[in-house]
């Protein structure tokens, strides 16, 4: 449903996107990840037809973004990064506004996304500005879905939203996926990315990884160890690990120090604590990949 081929975009001397290719199939969720400034929002701007000044090819449902932007707009629902609703309008008025703009009825949302609307309906007369963070995002998705698009684009819809509300938002997305909607969503939450069908990881405007979470995990190239690390011993642990030549990297993860090592790494203990081998998470995969990239401001 979404096809991007060799997309490039520069702003002055800054190369925001460089040779980015990927696709999102019908009924698939692709999580877009990467550091702040990696090019995620620029990519959304291009696919949502906001930014026509790009190189390469992009299409939605077979329609060229460059040649027929108005045709693309009918196929997509877009939830931008910043709260884009009218805070002084009520929930019902916001929905009516967006439905009118798309030339459809606000009542359609009841059939398109019944679960989502059921949660919002009790607040229909409440001003959008007075909704909680999670509810605002649910309303934003409703407004983006009111014209029943094939494709949903969501730019960091769960920033600052509490874990339960985030879970609710993702349940709604899973319901839309099962109805065949193709979803491209950017997030910094790794627990969200892991439930996507694929993760597209951008770094400095380029595709660093594009694969399913399971395949990313199975391709992790090191043995990973965890060490419970009391805060008071942090410096000692870091010093001992820095002296081990087999250690490729170490970093805090939860209450543990994660240690990526190769070869015959069997120190027994570090700072008096026993190491245990553990399985990598998606965060370990990203950290490993990024450790080969230069740190940029």
């Amino acid at each position, binding site marked *: 449903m979404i096809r991007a081929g060799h997309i490039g975009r520069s702003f002055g001397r800054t190369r925001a996107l460089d040779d980015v290719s990927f696709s999102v199939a019908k009924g698939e969720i692709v999580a877009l*990840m*990467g*550091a*702040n*400034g*990696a090019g995620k929002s620029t990519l959304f701007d291009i696919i949502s037809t906001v930014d026509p000044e790009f190189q390469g090819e992009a299409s939605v449902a077979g329609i060229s973004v460059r040649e027929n932007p108005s045709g693309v707009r009918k196929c997509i629902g877009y939830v931008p990064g910043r709260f884009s609703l009218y805070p002084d309008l009520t929930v019902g008025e916001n929905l009516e506004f967006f439905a009118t703009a798309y030339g459809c009825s606000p009542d359609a949302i009841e059939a398109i996304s019944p679960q989502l609307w059921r949660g919002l309906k009790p607040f229909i007369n409440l001003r959008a500005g007075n909704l*909680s*963070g*999670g509810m605002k995002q649910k309303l934003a998705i409703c407004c983006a879905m009111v014209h029943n698009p094939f494709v949903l684009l969501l730019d*960091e819809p769960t*920033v*600052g*939203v*509490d*874990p*339960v*509300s*985030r*879970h609710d938002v993702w349940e709604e997305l899973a319901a839309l996926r099962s109805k065949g909607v193709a979803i491209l969503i950017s997030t*910094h*939450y*790794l*627990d969200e990315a892991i439930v996507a069908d694929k993760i597209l990881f951008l770094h400095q405007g380029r595709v660093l990884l594009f694969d399913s979470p399971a395949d990313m995990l199975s391709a992790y190239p090191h043995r990973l160890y965890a060490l419970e690390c009391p*805060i*008071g011993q*942090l*410096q000692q642990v870091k010093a001992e690990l820095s002296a081990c030549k087999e250690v490729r990297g170490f*970093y*805090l*993860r*939860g*209450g543990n120090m994660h240690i990526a090592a190769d070869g015959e790494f069997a120190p027994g203990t570090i700072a008096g604590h026993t190491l245990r081998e553990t399985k990598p998470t998606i*965060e370990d995969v*990203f*950290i490993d990949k*990024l450790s080969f990239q230069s*740190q*940029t*401001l």
Partner: protein
Amino acid sequence: MNPIVKAEHVSKHFGCIKAVDDLSLTLAPGEILGLLGANGAGKTTLIRMLCGLIRQDAGSIWVDGRPGYMCQSFSLIEELTVSENIRYYGALYGLGKDEVRERGAQIEDSLRLGPYRDRQVRHLSSGWRQAISLSIAVLPRPKVLILDEPTSGLDAMSRRRLWDMIQDSASAGTGVIISTHYLDEAFYCSSLAIMKSGRLAASGHPGDLAGSESDLLNFFE
């Protein structure tokens, strides 16, 4: 160990809404206290009271010295360079020129900011701006550091860098109160206070409260 923050039976109302309701907590030197809760649970109101930005309606709050504070939105002056921001805030904190120069050099070294010290802050990524904000918050060497969702909207690497800095501060004896929506970050903390509708729903060591991130969700329901 004597506490460096002591809040006893603190309450705060906004109109008919009880934002914080009869809440008590303490913080010890070197402790990292994670403040969790749903949107609207009262975390930011509590933090603003602990910082002295708003006054409680009932109860008492005592903090050892002026806390270092960092909020979700960037507090740096975007038109100034990194070095200028450090000098500006150093002067605001009443530090001498030599001390500001020395601490500024330490910050630039530890964050490897060298090539960028003369770059305007607005040209830096949000992850780096938060790291610099945190460095500035600890400039006057506060005994207590209060951080309101400092990692919101940051990517995984930037979060990791910020947490390294927080852990380093705590290992040097600073007490830290930090609110977050990232459940994995709860396990970076030495203790947790979980708020629900303005009240303390649970508190204790993360491992004692929950075996996993998903277990923590039970406290939000």
